[in-house]
């Protein structure tokens, strides 16, 4: 049973079921936890994902052989019972539950515990073996309640307005942007957006989501309209000529990494808001305990520290695993193709 799931150079592989979970190289069958680019790769022959993830994959990867599931709905793949449970990370994000011969495995994908009102409410799933992320698996990462962070963002926007500055908020176009937009939509009549954010927002609206509408910034957008405006852009827009249009402006980054001052300073941003779509230290611990898993595999993030802590505190038998996830928050360029068009 121990090698029911193996960690291969293509990704997490289930031998009995002959499928992969979030593989980073082209495979036959892939179960996709969510639509971020480091989890949903191009080129698989068959995709299984949550109903709400499908439109996102269509938007990003085009037409493919997609099959969807609702939460708690199960199918059998080669004798393995597969079902999905909400992961609370972004729209459609799911944990993958695998059951075979009475043993239950859960692969978390990315998750957060706090309910953001859009992504579905995370629920821990009982299992024998839990594969967890650990993006923020150090105790320095403990999030403030999101309401408090939203208030800080709004205060910052208002202060910028008073000083005649535009507020440029950097947020990942899928997930963080929707969350931030939801929180700040009352502060101003029009919210402007970078092409990458606009396309994502529009795609979601087309898929039937009732979310805040944004106005795309184009070379034709008159500069007067942008004076003191609120603008949402992906992190990769920072420092590009695209930003010049908003001058004078202040830049705020919404990311869990902003918890540490050095990160905000290194990026030379004016304000950092520690708002994350990943579980914080307490969230990770609480989840591992709630699953009741006796065995835990810790993937992308602070896997060595988090697994060591789980072992030493006898919370579970833990081991670290190397994967290629975990780039969506900071380093990976966000939808480069669309941005090129924009510039």
């Amino acid at each position, binding site marked *: 049973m121990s090698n029911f799931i193996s960690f291969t150079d293509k990704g997490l592989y289930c031998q009995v079921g002959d499928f992969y979970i979030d593989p980073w190289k082209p495979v036959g069958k892939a179960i996709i936890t969510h639509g971020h680019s480091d989890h949903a790769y191009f080129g698989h022959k068959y995709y299984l994902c949550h109903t709400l993830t499908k439109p996102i994959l269509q938007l990003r990867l085009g037409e493919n052989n997609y099959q969807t599931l609702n939460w708690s709905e199960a199918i059998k793949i080669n004798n393995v019972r597969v079902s999905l449970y909400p992961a609370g990370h972004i729209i459609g994000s799911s944990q993958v539950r695998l059951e075979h011969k009475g043993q239950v495995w859960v692969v978390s994908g990315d998750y957060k515990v706090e309910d953001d009102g859009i992504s579905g409410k995370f629920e821990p799933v009982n299992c024998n073996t839990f594969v967890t992320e650990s993006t923020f698996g*150090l*105790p*320095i*990462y*403990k999030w403030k309640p999101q309401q408090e962070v939203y208030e800080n963002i709004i*205060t910052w926007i*208002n*202060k910028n307005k*008073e000083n005649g500055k535009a507020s440029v908020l950097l947020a990942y176009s899928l997930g963080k942007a929707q969350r931030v937009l939801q929180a700040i939509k009352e502060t101003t009549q029009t919210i402007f957006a970078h092409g990458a954010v606009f396309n994502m927002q529009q795609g979601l609206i087309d898929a039937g989501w009732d979310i805040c509408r944004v106005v795309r910034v184009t070379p034709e957008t008159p500069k007067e309209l942008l004076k003191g405006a609120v603008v949402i852009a992906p992190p990769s827009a920072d420092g590009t000529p695209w930003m010049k249009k908003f001058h004078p402006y202040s830049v705020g980054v919404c990311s869990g990494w902003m*918890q*540490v*001052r*050095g*990160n*905000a*300073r*290194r990026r*030379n*941003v*004016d*304000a*950092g808001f520690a708002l994350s779509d990943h579980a914080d230290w307490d969230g990770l611990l609480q989840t591992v305990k709630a699953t009741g898993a006796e065995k835990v595999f810790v993937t992308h993030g*602070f896997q060595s*520290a988090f697994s*060591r*802590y789980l072992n*030493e505190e006898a919370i579970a038998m833990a081991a670290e695993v190397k994967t290629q996830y975990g780039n969506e928050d900071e380093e990976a360029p966000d939808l480069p193709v669309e941005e090129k068009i924009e510039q």
Partner: protein
Amino acid sequence: MTAGNLNNDMAHSPDVPGNGETTISGLELFARLIGELNSSTKTNDKLQSLVDYFAIAPDRDKVWVIAVFSGRRPRRIVSSTLLRDWCSEITRYPAWLLDECYHTVGDLAETLALLLPETKHTDNSNQNLSYYLETFINIEKQDESVRKSFIFDSWQQMSRDERFVFNKLITGGFRIGVSQKMIVNALVKIVDLSASVIAHRISGNWDPVTTSFNDLLSESASLSDFSKPYPFYLAYALEEEPDVLGDEKDWQAEWKWDGIRGQIVKRNNEIFVWSRGEELMTDKFPEYFILKDLLPDGVVIDGEIIPAIEGKPLPFSVLQTRIGRKNIGKTQLQDAPICFFAYDLLEYKGADFREKPLYERRNQLAEIIDPIKNKAIKISEILFFSSWDELKELRKSSREMNSEGIMLKRKNSDYKVGRKRGDWWKWKIDPFTIDCVMVYAQKGSGRRSNLYTDYTFAVRDGDNLVTFTKAYSGLTDKEFAQVDNFVKRNSIEKFGPVRTVKPELVFEIAFEGIAVSNRHKSGVALRFPRMSRWRKDKSVDEINTIDDLKAMLKMYGK
């Protein structure tokens, strides 16, 4: 503060005072100031934050902020190790986990602030900044248990941001780009005094515990401490040939000496020696005591503190052997005798001389020093040259003189405050350089935490590599990002925070001096090493060898 902001603050505060004013503790104001200074990237924004702070902060706190940013922080009351232990005790996190966090954050004060449990901010029970700093002084010598309970109690009452500044006050060094000059520029907008008077007042030997804001910056009485030095005038580097400076007859040239820039103050029949960092160093240089009897009263002389035998300077490394010591013994006095190479006269007969032209100040300086004839002081000689070309020739002999190059000063210039362009230039000789390969990398701190920016370099020794220096500066942000990326993909082993890296990237290291070291494997220690170029054109086979270093050592090491 605008009405909008006020309302916002009131909404957060559970008990709104009846008079409509918010009560913000001095510590919270200070934490906000540090937050703003931390996040702003523009000098003007920082200045504005300071001005705003000085406009509303309690007087005692203002005095302390000036003190802290001019290097007058109270002595450290606990070690970093104890702070870590206590944090472990409260949080129950094991020591290794704390270390892991520390390496990610890159700053102990911040790490602890993030780890300690969040408090419910019930009321503004916090005190002013002055309370905490003065308590540090009061309990410094007391039992560990007293210090511990003070720190525990304080932590418990503080928000995360307040804890951060509180811890920072203990561990030291804010590193937020606030110079003494910036403090002066902010104070200029608050009190009716000129920048140089303020700079003068806040330098020197004053005690924040006994000095009130009014004493320090009173606009009338010149109740001043008679030990005070003047702010130093610093030169910019001359990057071009001196021909651009115009007529050579307008310029005075002298050697650029490689010691510690300092001022000797003699007033009220006492003598004080100040370093450029405005540190009082009188006791470190007993050689100068005799100047108390030899110099006239009411003079301030600018010059270089430098080891020299019979007027001939020794390498800087000789001075280094005594700087760190608390007590100077016979050996040091014998092996590294100190002389003062006088450059300039800032005060004469108790009067500020700085606005007089340089040639006049120099003449007066010579009149004072020439008759003294003591090995503790000499004039830094003026170099004779009749054309720029002649001076260029002369500069080539800098190394033999143990000098770093040539100083050029406009003959009719006044003595300015801080680094100013135009009248004073340092025309340094090119640094030593050596090509080597990066072998270890470690994450930086502060702005560079999370990025591998601190590197160790090696040269070849036969078939082996031998490490000889570290360097942290000289690359652009973009290059650092590229090297960081390389480190992450090419690390071989991990020792705590240090990664050994595939020896592949070749850099040119520039440095100002070389000396024997028993501490480093290579047997040499470099002065001010930095990365001058990333030699993408070179491979590891083409780097310098340990023999090259040894040859440099032999030529210039002593």
